[in-house]
């Protein structure tokens, strides 16, 4: 009994770690750090799955954990780092809003999530905190996508959202069937690869990965129509 109590505490700690990496993303100035934050986030996610895997000795969870580590913890970060290095000039994040405002908004988001999920949701999985944190991470990921200018930061935001979703699923069910997790991981991998290719293509075509300038496509289309 004592052991399981320890386990939930450990898991809560790890979840908080995941949330912290997401919050940290708000203040990071350089693209490399963003990728690093994502790496830590993924490793924490791996740990989160590993702990119940060890305690319950469930082979499914082992597989899920190792796959998470392999794709999210190693392959995707390496790929992202490569893309970042390819961008020769500016490695700065260049957000629309100041870091302080970004942090404040994240805080508000977390408050809303905690306030609205405090009642009425019964968790069948292992932790109520993990659920709230996971939704907070999803929203912060979305916030990052909205407030950052560059395509690669948008990819990072998307990946954070995906990790949040993974955590939501895990907190509600204590591990989905392996085949589903396998599918999701594969999807994410493909998604990142495709987005990476797109980023490179966008830079080739428009000499910038600043998505601000993608509105010009829209404008051109409207003028064509008009």
């Amino acid at each position, binding site marked *: 009994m004592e052991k399981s109590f320890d386990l939930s505490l450990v898991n809560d700690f790890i979840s908080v770690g995941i949330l912290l990496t997401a919050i940290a993303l708000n203040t990071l100035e350089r693209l490399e750090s963003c990728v690093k934050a994502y790496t830590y986030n993924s490793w924490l996610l791996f740990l989160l799955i590993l702990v119940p895997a060890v305690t319950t000795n469930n082979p499914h969870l082992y597989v899920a954990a190792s796959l998470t580590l392999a794709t999210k913890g190693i392959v995707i970060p390496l790929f992202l780092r490569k893309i970042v290095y390819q961008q020769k000039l500016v490695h700065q994040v260049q957000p*629309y809003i100041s870091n302080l405002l970004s942090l404040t908004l994240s805080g508000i*988001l977390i408050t*809303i*999530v905690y306030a*609205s*999920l405090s*009642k*009425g*949701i019964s968790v069948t999985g292992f932790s109520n905190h993990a659920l709230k944190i996971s*939704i907070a991470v999803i*929203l912060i990921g*979305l*916030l990052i*996508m*909205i*407030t950052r200018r560059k395509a690669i930061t*948008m990819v990072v935001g998307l990946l954070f959202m995906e990790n949040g979703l993974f955590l939501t699923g895990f907190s509600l069910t204590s591990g989905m069937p392996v085949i589903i997790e396998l599918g999701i991981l594969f999807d994410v991998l493909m998604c990142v690869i495709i987005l990476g290719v797109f980023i490179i293509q966008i830079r080739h075509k428009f000499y910038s990965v600043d*998505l*601000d300038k*993608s*509105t010009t*496509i*829209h*404008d051109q289309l*409207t003028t064509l129509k008009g």
Partner: protein
Amino acid sequence: MTSMYIYYFGLLLFIAGAIIPLIYPQKMKRFAYIFPTVGACAFAAFGMYLLFDHPLDISAVSITPLLGFVFRGDAISGFFILLISILTFSVSVYSMGYTKNMANKGVMGVLFNTFILSMYAVILSGNVITFLISWETMSIISYLLVTFDREEESASAGLLYAIMTHVGTAFILTAFLLLYKYTGHMDFAGIKEATNDIPAGIKTIVFVFAVIGFGTKAGIVPLHTWLPRAHPAAPSNISSLMSGVMIKTGIYGILRIVVDILGVGPEWWGIAIIVIGAMSAVLGILYALTENDMKRFLAYSSIENIGIILLGIGASMVLASNGLHTLSAIAMTAGLYHTLNHTLFKGLLFLGAGSVVHATHSKNMEEMGGLIKLMPYTAFFFLIGSVSICALPLFNGFVSEWLTFQALLFDFKSASAVAKLIAPMSGAALAFTGAMAIACFVKVFGISFLGMPRSQHAENAKETSTSMLAGMGFLSLFCLLTGIFPGHTIKLFSSSVFLLTGADYSSSGMGILSMREISSSISPLSLFIVMISLFIAAVFLVRIFGGKRKITYGNSWDSGIPSLTSRMQYTATAFTNPIRVTFKKIYLSKRHTKVSYALKPYFAKAIEYRDDITPFFEKYIYQPVTDFIHSLAGKVKHLQSGDLHLYLGYILATLILLLIFWS
């Protein structure tokens, strides 16, 4: 069971007709019109079966256990099936010649067959879902046919049509949902049984919505704007079908929902229908009068005729709510008779107009003239159509308008003062409409068929092919037959009248229309015989007493001017000028006269005259609404900025709002 086989046989033929033109060989495309010709005969037999025998359930596919495609026929649908079949037969025969040199022949064949099938489906629908799906299919296919020639004008007409018809469908959908909510039934039979559960207020809303929704399709006056633009834009065989039967599906909807399902309502329902009918009739014919585009003119005339049909139906509703069921049956007979007649002669006139447009390559009457010598048969059939639509005796329009007059006069017997007041006024409106219709068709026939050719094209016009003439001839024959045998015709659809009003009106005798209630009667058949014998007698008398005469041919009298030119003739605009001046207040016309003088004020070199009428509804109702929607759309457009971040922001905002308000 034979009837089922006939039904499936007809269905199969139309489907075959829709598929065959897709097969490549050009020779196969002929079958696109041969199959529906036979199919129409089969469906006509099926419609007769429904009219004479018992209602029929046709087993069909079910989508879910709750909902399915249900087709069901009764006497009311039988009547409309018969209408569609008669016109389809003639139009199919006509189309064999008409589409010979048409581009995209195969597509035309497919659309033609599916269009007719969708109209059958609307009429035979047994429940709400089937009805709506068929209704929308009909609208979409007719949209494709309106924009068939891919010209800019057709495209804008098609857009207007699509918008109007969908607004109409929205009203119909709301009416159906209300019916479903208060009766718990989706099928029409179930709704009809449970109508007593519907509160009176809801019934009124359903009535208003059904009239607006179906009225849009039928072309009642404030909602008519699409009609004069969409009907002329379609190829003529399709215009004939659209004007002849498609707008009748709107009448069918009003009959089915208001008269059949909702049953006898308060008196003001009927009065509202009468007022709408009178307004459509008067304004329709007044606008028709100023129109120089032949097909657009016919489309306006369709609005007028829909008005006349509604006058009969409205009178029937008023009488029914006063408990005068036999009189109500007579009024309903008038309405249905005019529905049948309008199908026949408007179909005929549109086919005639199609032949003329086909031969002269112009829709403008001012460029025609003298066609009676070049296209004598077409002119003859067109004349029969014109005489019928002007309600002159011997032809069918006379019978139905006479009946409608009687129906309106019956309204005196209703209790309320309003009905007593409305009845003579709408009768006067109908009389006015009749007079104007004659002026209109004198103008159309006179300007385009008589006189001298006004353009090169009119000079080179040739008589159309045999199949086109056959199609028109068939309809002309029907116009005559329903005109001189009204008793038989009424007997044909007396079962649908019985179903709608609960009473029977059977006129006695073969060619005699008599009403015991007010002891008025008329016999078109004896009129016909008298006229024929008078004619023969006159010929004989001339032969006997006239002696021998020599026929000499000479030029028309030309007042001493060296030669007559076509520019000396009355133009279409000039012909209608007196009427336009009289009704200046309705037309809101603006005249412009510009004279350039060689020597002022005696020698005018050129006089330019223009007379524009202001389309009241378009300018003062539709234009402001359109502008408002445009400005609203302009404001909404800012939401779609093309900025990815903003779009993501919308998602975030939505998520947060959901989190806050949902939990």
